[in-house]
């Protein structure tokens, strides 16, 4: 990475906890022996704000958080293929608002499960290799985007089962894509990052007619004129190693590599020449012992805070939108020693879940100040 010029230094957060909030473990459950790679709350539908899903091995499990630290298992799905290993899960819904659980993994097949009928809704075959992350468009929750080892990012319509766009080709990623995220307000925009150390911002504005067409498509999904988006609008080299998680924070981007920190930066695009631009690194949120890849962070609904686990089973909770960044809390427990692959923050940030390599789910609840 290039040296940072004077006057462009980022603000680095201090690791001294600000004691603004405190969390304590309220539950721990062992789901199985296989590692859990993802855990996610449902932010799509306010009825299910306390419902979350985890994936690991060939299982997808839906839970509910109750008052007082209790966790209920609501649904549990198992893929008949024992070799399947799910890496990612996301909540979506069809145009009628029926809740879907969407999961993907090593087989490269996206499983869309209708949670209201507990049946498989559709299976999307198309990716040439494992699926590393699936995210849902918050404004149109029947659109999902998937990041895959086959170096592509694909946009799907879970309602009609159509692969609308493939973000890949001449300007695409040159190694596995590990993470992808929809812009919270700009419906055309996504960001993706991966093992080629880059973060790429894509726009589907020119292809939006295809997205609209996908909602009214009645023919076979395979006959849909899927388009390739070959050129991103912005390519950023913020990191010098695998970039395994990225999220939009408004118009800024949070991304992390294996450098023990999350970086907040602003993409500054040059209007005339797409693909080019500069990166202004604004803030850094240090996360000690976070130097292995495939550790993902999560934010609460309003992006006030982010939680990230590390290699040693600790969770760091950072206040995101303050400058300098403040460490809200550092969560550690004597029995939590396994790497935490992903965390999930509840709608208001009062519950933090961590899913671990050893197949456990940990629940942390905020202690009210009084």
């Amino acid at each position, binding site marked *: 990475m290039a040296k940072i010029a*004077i006057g462009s230094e980022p603000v680095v957060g201090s690791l001294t906890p600000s004691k603004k909030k405190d969390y304590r473990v309220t539950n721990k*459950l062992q789901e199985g022996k296989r590692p859990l790679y993802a855990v996610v709350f449902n932010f799509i*539908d*306010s009825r299910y704000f306390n419902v979350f899903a985890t994936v690991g091995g060939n299982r997808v499990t839906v839970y509910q958080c109750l008052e007082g630290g*209790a966790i*209920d298992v609501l649904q549990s799905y198992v893929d008949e*293929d024992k070799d399947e290993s799910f890496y990612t899960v996301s909540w979506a819904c069809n145009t009628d608002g029926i809740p879907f659980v969407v999961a993907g993994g090593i087989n490269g097949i996206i499983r869309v499960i209708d949670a209201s009928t507990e049946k498989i809704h559709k299976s999307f075959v198309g990716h040439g290799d494992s699926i590393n992350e699936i995210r849902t468009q918050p404004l149109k929750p029947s659109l999902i985007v998937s990041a895959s080892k086959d170096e592509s990012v694909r946009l799907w319509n879970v309602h009609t089962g159509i692969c609308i766009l493939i973000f890949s080709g001449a300007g695409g990623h*040159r190694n596995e894509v590990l993470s992808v995220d929809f812009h919270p307000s700009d419906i055309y925009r996504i960001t993706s990052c991966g093992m080629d150390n880059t973060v790429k911002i894509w726009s589907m504005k020119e292809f939006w007619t295809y997205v609209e067409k996908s909602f009214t498509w009645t023919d076979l999904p395979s006959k849909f004129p899927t388009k390739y988006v070959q050129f991103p609008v912005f390519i950023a080299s913020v990191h010098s190693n695998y970039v395994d998680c990225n999220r939009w924070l408004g*118009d800024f981007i949070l991304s992390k590599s294996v450098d023990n920190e999350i970086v907040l930066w602003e993409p500054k695009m040059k209007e005339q020449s797409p693909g080019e631009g500069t990166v202004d690194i604004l803030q850094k949120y240090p996360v000690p012992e976070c130097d292995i890849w495939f550790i993902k962070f999560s934010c609460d609904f309003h992006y006030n805070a982010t939680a990230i686990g590390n290699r040693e089973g600790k969770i760091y909770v950072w206040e995101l*939108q303050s400058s300098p960044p403040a460490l809200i809390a550092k969560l550690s427990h004597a029995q939590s020693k396994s790497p935490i692959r992903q965390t999930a923050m509840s709608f208001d940030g009062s519950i933090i879940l961590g899913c671990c390599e050893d197949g456990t789910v940990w629940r942390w609840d905020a202690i009210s100040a009084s």
Partner: protein
Amino acid sequence: MASDPSPSASRSEPHDDSLMTKSLETTPTLKHISSVIDSLKKQVAADRSVSIQKRIEDNKQKLLGVTNHLSKFSNGRKSCWTNNNDNSVDLLTKRQNDAVDMTTGDKDGYSSQEDAHGSTAVLQGSSMAVKNADRFIKLAEAKRLPPYTTWIFLDRNQRMTEDQSVVGRRRIYYDQNGGEALICSDSEEEVIDDEEEKREFVEFEDYILRMAIKEVGLSDQVLESLAQCLSRSPREVKARYEILMNEEKAVEGSKNGDEAHYVNPFLDKDLEAALDSFDNLFCRRCLVFDCRLHGCSQDLFFPAEKQSPWSHVDEENVPCGPHCYQAVLKSDRTTIVSFPLNGDVEEKFAPLSDGAGTWISRKMPSGPSARRRLKSCQSESASSNAKNISESSDSDIGPRQDTTSTPLPSPSKTKLAGKCGIHKRNSKRVAERVLACMQKRQKKMVASDSDSIVSGGLLPSDIKLRSNSHKENADATSSSHKNVKSLIVGRSRRKEWPIQDCRNLVHSEHPDGSPNKMITDPPMTSSDDTMRKDECVDDNTCKQELSDDKSWKAIEKGLLEKGVEIFGRNSCLISRNLLNGLKTCWEIFQYMTYSENKLSCQAGDAANSLLEGFSKFDFNGSMSGNEVRRRSRFLRRRGRVRRLKYTWKSAAYHSIRKRITERKDQPCRQYNPCNCQTACGKQCSCLLNGTCCEKYCGCPKSCKNRFRGCHCAKSQCRSRQCPCFAADRECDPDVCRNCWVSCGDGTLGVPNQRGDNYECRNMKLLLKQQQRVLLGRSDVSGWGAFLKNSVGKHEYLGEYTGELISHREADKRGKIYDRENSSFLFNLNDQFVLDAYRKGDKLKFANHSPDPNCYAKVIMVAGDHRVGIFAKERISAGEELFYDYRYEPDRAPAWARKPEASGSKREEGAPSSGRAKKVA
């Protein structure tokens, strides 16, 4: 010191005055300098954190609105649901409610057949996980695809773009089985070159620089400490400072009201500048813009042999539109023929009808005989007036006639002479012609005058000169002037001349007679019509001529020049193809005659110019005198472009050549066109490179190194008797004598057919006549390519397309591919390897077999090497395609190793590199 201590100070230079004075007083010490810089640094750092704070706060506000909006969505879904779906059962909601009800239920997790873990550890408090679902919901198995990397379809090879190179980059390879990431780099070449990346100066650096120098003055000491502070070189700092100062001045300058005037950048460029991008972007080999195969900024090669200008056929000579010069001329001629003839308006009608008669007679005949007849007709009609003119300009004609008879080198001379011979009896006609030339010369003067008018100052002498010439003219065509004047009453003299011009031009056009043009002229039906047109045209002419010089922009002139080169002096075609929407045919015609005359006048020799002017009107487009000049212009341009863009290329050339000569047994050599202007000698790059010259080379067709194609008549070019086939080349319709393709349904005409029912069968790659290939699960491993329809032996199936990469690049990429045990590299020639990993076509999935049904062959198609896949035997529909990858024996992966190590001849010459590549 005097620097502003407040960290939150805005950067509006609050300490200007005090600092300036101070820096004048004392020479700054090192300590002083560093303290100044330090304080600036602190200030900048503070500013930075403030600005970040502000930006984050702004973003926060914005995001708050967004998330609130989203939260409404989430809530909306709930209400929408409760309204609409009262009856249906949502199992998720049901389970949710059930769970709440049985919070006090059993404590254990869930039992499952497999790896369920019975116990739920409750750590703190009284909370517990509640078992709600005992059973697993099974997801039916879906068959997964064989793994592949997303790839883009290519119907032709592409050269790798710079940003796709992996050479010099550290690559991390994640080993799925080992579960570890390996850094893939070979230590010798991997000098992690920090790339001397030229960092741009950011705003804050500029600020520090400016302020520090303002404060302590510009000295080496200051520069050095600044450089240290900014971690740059002092020189860099100084250069930047100068830029900043200049910018500042420029800003001030523009503030002072120096209004820069903006102009259309495109139309103000001359053609050369505009063509610069064309030359850079247009591929002359593929005839497309932005060619992905040969790239942008190619070397420009201008063929030593100029193509003769496009010769038009008779049917092209219908007026091209309402502004066609033919239409205008035709009607104009009537007027002008009549004008010199008759002094009076009343008499005008007589010659008019005469003219109409002429047209009718012209219309009938065609071919060379028409030419004579036409001419005689014309001269007859002209004879009466010629008398008149020759009388009025007696003194002039004598010497001019002399000049006509002097021997001249231009081809027009013979023509003229011939004409004179034909029309011996018509000496009056000659006189008239000479007169016309004379008038033209006057017009030339006018032209140069009007040039000066355009450029601004109008000198009195000029006016005199012009009035003189005008008078002369008036003398010569004394009778006509009354008429003209009557038409243009109230117009200034300047307006008058253009009319004369056009008249002149018609005059001069008249005797030469360009028969082609006239023959198809529609006959005039009524003289009234003609009259109306006349007036109309006259008006038009005036207007157009007025704006003539000014309105011809540099680019338009340039385009016209090109047009003349391409189409000859055919204004119809030029206007339609090159100046569409910019200039009308008539305008072009006028300008052409106009500028040619001007040009010839400048040439000096009056007699020559006269005749040359004459020849210019010959619409066959023989460009005698002008060509030399144009050629030299090209040479100049070519030189310039090359210097700008290609110096590095020629430098690299030699090293490549060396390598090639060392490796004689290399089967294919990359062809690069040579730029020899004469027959290729020892210096020819093609010869040195060991390739044949091709049609893209600059050298003349007679070059001995040229591949001359085949003359096959019946073999269909499918056996080694065809020289093309024998040389592993496809036939080229531009080169081979009998190999051609007809276009469309034949209505556009077909080339002459020489053989009987001959059809070349050696152009399938060129014509993309390939078989339908299907992609499917292979019977062997992974993906496979299958044939849709059955084919016979040696049938062409399709092309193996991909990215063209260098051998070095291929070595680098191959390391990763070999680890993944799937390589799509294919040796193409001494320079390039095809990589179909991310770009290619379905044939990349054809698997290897030691006993294959297909074979691959590198074929030269129009100067490019391409890989064709051919049937080795009869293949029936639906069969999977295999071919022998021909990996070099020592590099081949286990699955491609032949039991009987039969190294083919071709493999020996391949470069020794550490990767497995397919070899044709």
